[in-house]
Structure formats: structure tokens, C-alpha cells
């Protein structure tokens, strides 16, 4: 079975869609020779040329506007915002335009575009390059928000993002680009709003996203030895959220931990925790536990950054808190 990295999986999807649909193009800062912020589109300029792989000025509003205008007039644009930190520079185009046009026009048009960007704290990039700003996309109705963790999901979900008629925010994660996994060479899609149980278990449910999926799996494996059976659920699409799968699992385990890298206050973990507290209260046998970035800016200094990034340690502690005594 062929194994490729998340980065390669994303590139494969981009290449496929560019090759099979001439309405698809990619635009963003340095997406051609440099391959964009994270090298995902590297090399595609040689195959598809400047018409399809469009470098833009440092004008985030114009990048998203380019996508919206093109989507409204029949194209299927993919635009890149180099880091999710810079969505603040085009927040209006995303939250008041891209997300709302279908609704405010009473359904006259669709806005089939993908905004790809990258989230996550890593490598001393400091506070303005370590934000996990996606909760604002969840709090603004109208956007599909995807956040895959594996190479398989990355390819299938990127294909789906381009195919879907809704505006999609596609969130990559800095720390997992080089992770390898099986990815079929054929074209396939991963459906929107369907979570994936990355590991089945009986005692505790962990809903984890992106890099934290790996941390959760690793801790879960360790816990097997201690006789604790953990179920790890990767929601994959953050909006619409597959609550059914999460609820099913909580019904079984009665214990829930959510591990997501956005800041805790009004973050993604809050949404999952409160949905369960509302709708699955009777099945809960222990308090839910949220794991996320602490409610401070990300520090630059290496040892502090390591403390700041949520990971295995926080998961282990959370397990202690919720586990059957």
C-alpha cells in the first residue's frame, strides 16, 4: 500500500482537480514557485502555468474577493491564506461576504470556493503566527469548516471541499504535514459532516482534532496497557459537526475529553462539551474535560512554547480526571 505524507496527499488532490476541471484554479501569496506557505502547491506551476496557479500581492481581502467573484461567476476557486493568523486581514470578506452571500441573496447563487490555510503553534513562530482562529468560522453560520488529520482524509476531504457547493474553509495543521499514511491513488471523497472513529474503545471518549489525534492515539495505546480502553473520534469536519457519532460514543463510555488546539474560551472544545452537556447529560458519568491552547498569546521562547502547546501530557491528566475510580 502506497504511503504518502499529508502534504503530498493535498498536492495530489490539487493536481487532480486542476487536471480534471478547468474551472478550478489556485490563487494566493507565493503559491507558484514557492508552493505557498507550506509548500503544498510546489511544482504545480510547471504543470498548469500562471493562468491556473496565480501568485497574488499581499492583499488578503483581494485574495478572498478574487475567490468570491470567481465563484459567483461559474469558477471553482481555491484560495490560500498563507497562515490562519492572516484571516484577520480579510475577516470581512470571509464572515460577511463568503459565508453570507448564499443566504442573503435568498439562495440565488452558490459560492463554491475553498479557502485553504494552516493553523497550529509550532517552532517558535510566536503569537502572530501561532493562532488557531477557526472558532470564528464556526461562530459564523454559512461556512463548511474542515480540519483533517491523516493523509487519507486530507486528500479525500480536499476533493470533497472542491466538489461541494458551499464555501469551505480548509484548515491544514503545521505539525502534521510530514506524517505518512496510506492514500489510494484513485480519486475518492470523504463526505462532509462524518466523523471517523480512529480507534474504538469502551471506557473513555476522546474527540480530537488534527495534531491532537496523534497525541490521543498514542496515549490511548499506552492506556491499553493499564487496562483503560479509549475511543478516539476525529470529527474531521468541524462544521457541520457529526454529533451523532460523538453522542453514540458517549452513550457507551459515559466519559468525554475533547482535545483541540484552539484557545479554550469559546473554542471548538467548548462547542463539543456544551453540546454533550445539553443533549447527553444523562449518559455522562464524569465531568467533561476540555483540552486546548491556554487563554494567553503563544510565547516565542522554546520551552514555554512546548508548555503552551496542548498534547499528551494534558491528555494523560484529563484521563486521570475522568477515569473510573
Amino acid at each position, binding site marked *: 500500500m502506497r504511503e504518502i505524507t499529508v502534504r503530498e496527499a493535498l498536492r495530489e488532490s490539487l493536481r487532480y482537480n486542476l487536471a480534471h476541471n478547468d474551472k478550478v*484554479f489556485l490563487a494566493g501569496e507565493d503559491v507558484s514557485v514557492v508552493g505557498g506557505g507550506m509548500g503544498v502547491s510546489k511544482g504545480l506551476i510547471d504543470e498548469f502555468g500562471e*493562468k491556473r496557479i496565480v501568485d*497574488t*500581492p499581499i*492583499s*488578503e*481581502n*483581494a485574495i*478572498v*474577493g*478574487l*475567490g*468570491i*467573484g*470567481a465563484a*459567483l*461567476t*461559474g*469558477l471553482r*476557486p481555491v484560495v490560500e491564506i498563507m497562515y490562519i493568523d492572516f484571516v484577520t486581514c480579510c475577516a*470581512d*470578506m470571509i464572515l*460577511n*461576504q463568503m459565508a453570507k*452571500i*448564499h*443566504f*442573503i*441573496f*435568498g*439562495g*440565488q*447563487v*452558490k459560492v463554491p470556493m475553498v479557502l485553504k490555510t494552516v493553523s497550529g503553534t509550532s517552532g517558535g513562530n510566536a503569537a502572530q503566527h501561532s493562532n488557531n482562529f477557526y472558532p470564528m468560522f464556526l461562530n459564523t*453560520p*454559512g461556512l*463548511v469548516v474542515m480540519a483533517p488529520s491523516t493523509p487519507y482524509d486530507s486528500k479525500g476531504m480536499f476533493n470533497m471541499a472542491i466538489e*461541494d*457547493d*458551499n464555501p469551505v474553509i480548509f484548515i491544514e495543521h503545521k505539525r502534521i504535514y510530514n506524517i505518512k499514511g496510506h492514500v489510494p491513488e484513485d480519486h475518492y471523497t470523504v463526505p*462532509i459532516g462524518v466523523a471517523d472513529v480512529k480507534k474504538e474503545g469502551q471506557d473513555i471518549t476522546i474527540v480530537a482534532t488534527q495534531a491532537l489525534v496523534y497525541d490521543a492515539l498514542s496515549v490511548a495505546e499506552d492506556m491499553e496497557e493499564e487496562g483503560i480502553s479509549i475511543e478516539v473520534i476525529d470529527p474531521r469536519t468541524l462544521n*457541520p459537526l457529526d454529533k451523532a457519532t460523538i453522542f453514540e460514543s458517549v452513550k457507551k463510555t459515559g466519559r468525554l475529553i475533547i482535545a483541540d488546539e484552539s484557545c479554550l474560551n469559546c473554542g471548538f472544545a467548548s462547542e463539543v462539551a456544551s453540546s454533550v452537556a445539553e443533549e447527553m447529560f444523562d449518559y455522562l458519568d464524569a465531568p467533561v474535560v476540555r483540552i486546548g491552547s491556554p487563554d494567553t498569546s503563544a510565547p516565542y521562547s522554546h520551552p514555554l512554547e512546548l508548555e503552551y502547546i496542548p498534547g499528551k501530557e494534558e491528555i494523560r491528566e484529563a484521563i486521570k480526571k475522568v477515569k473510573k475510580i
Partner: protein
Amino acid sequence: MQISDKNNIELLRTMKRIRTFDETCQKLFVAGRIPGALHCYTGEEAIATGVCKVLEPSDYILSTHRGHGHLIAKGGEFKYMLAELFGKSTGYCKGMGGSMHLASVKHGILGANGIVGGGICIAAGVGFSIKYQGTDQVVVCFFGDGGISTGFFHEGLNLASIHNAPVVFVCENNLYSISMTSKRATGLDKLSTRAVSYNMPGETVDGNDILAVYESAYNAIERARAGKGPTLLEYITYRWRGHHAGEAGDGLFYREKKELESWKTKDPIRRYQALLLKEGKITEEKIEKMEMDIQQEMDDAIEFANNSPYPKAESIIELSMLKKE
């Protein structure tokens, strides 16, 4: 510039239709029949009329919060517009958008916008898309003198310029953004000066002279259609009403009555009508008939809007996101 007799009459009719529609809306607003924010175009009719007369049905426009005139001039019908303002399901946007989001995609009207400058980067995207698809369409982007101070203006004009996209940027300078004069907001005598920054032609024109508007728009639109790139047009005009229909005393607490009165003597409609009468291109009787027809259209629209049902509550949810069929 030669204009056919038929078109002369059409220009007059369109201006009168816009005037009737917005003056009626102003009254309906005061009578409590229209909620929300309503921004009347009274006094500025020559701009939308002159510019849109040059456009083909397949061309696009991006409009503003003060957008009724643009819609009417581009082919919007009173009854669906008014139904929208009444919040009825028969409105262009099924009652979801109202005045600030009026759109009729089949007419190429890609929407009014509640965000000042919000359409500018989208217009650049539409221009990019036209070029990408190789059609000979053009997109006109309207915005006010206030819109010229937004970051959108800068990013959007630059993007359109470097792609040599077929976009005509139309700044409707009615001298005020709410209470702030354009001179105080920019320090400039002519806002079209800013075209230089984007390597495109800029022109400042009397926006109350329909023939001057038509001619300048014709040149810019033909230039765009011929692949020669974008233009920035500034039309000087004045709004007769308050910033919005609910503003006290036509905004006379921040502008002089004398100023308003002097601009009323420059009424674009009376001015053009007098010219046509003088040149024998129209008769008093024909004008009377024209006005009666327009009033009839308005009355019909009121009846249509009155008799239309409100949208069902479920439509909020139906429109919130596109479902896969």
C-alpha cells in the same frame, strides 16, 4: 457623442423610474412599511442610469447600500424589489436580504452590500473570472466617496490592475459619507487622482449630467471590453435625502440648507428633460404619459408586495447551508 432618440427617451425614463421608486420608498419607510436601513438615491439618478445604459444584459454590477438605482438601471423590476423591501417571499432575495442585500443574479446584479467597500474586491474577482473564461463581459463596481477610504478599495483596484481585468470602478461622490465630507476624509480635490496608484486612467465627471456620465462610462466600458484594463471614474453628485430614510431633516444638521437647495437646481432629471424638450426630442404629453406609466408600475408593485406572503420560518434553516442532493 451621438445617442439614438430611443435611448434618449430611455435615459429619461430610467432616471424617472429610479426617482419614483426611491421617493416612494422614502414615504413607505416613514409610514413604517419598510424596516431596516433604507438609503435613497434621489438626486444621483444620472449615474446609475448613464453607466448601466452602456452595459449589456450579460455584464455584471456590484452595488452598494444605496443601490436601488443601480438595480433598476440594470433591469431590476419594481415589484420584486419592493417585495424584498417588504420582506416578502416573492422578493428578489426571498425576503432574506432587504435593501442592503438586493441582488438579481440573472440580471448580472451581484448584490448590494451592507459593508462599505465590500463589493470592490469581489468585483476584482469577477473581472479576473471574465478574463479567465475569455468572454467579453465587463463588470462595473459602484461605491461611494466613503468607500474610497477602505482598505478594500486599495487591494481591489490593485488586483484588477495587475490582471488588466475588465472592471470599471465607479465612485459616486455625493460629497458626504454620512456627515463626513469627502474633502475632509481624503484631503483631495479629485478622488480620481487615486487611479495613478493603480496605473489606470482616472476621470472626474459631473455626475448630474447624464450625457457626460454616459460618454465617460462608454469610453471606460469599451476600453475594458477591448481588453485594455480597468478605469476609475468619479462622478460628482449630491443626495437630496438624509443618509438613510430615517435620518432627521434630510441631514440638514450637518449640511447647509443652501447647499442642498443649490444642488436641487442641478437636478439631473429636470436638466435632461429640459434639454430633450428644447431639442424637440420629447413632448410634454409624452413626459406626462411616461410619468403616469411609471406611477402605475409603482402602484402595481405596492399591490404585488402587499399581497405577497412572508417567507416561511423554515426558509431560514433551508438557506443556511446547501445540502448535497
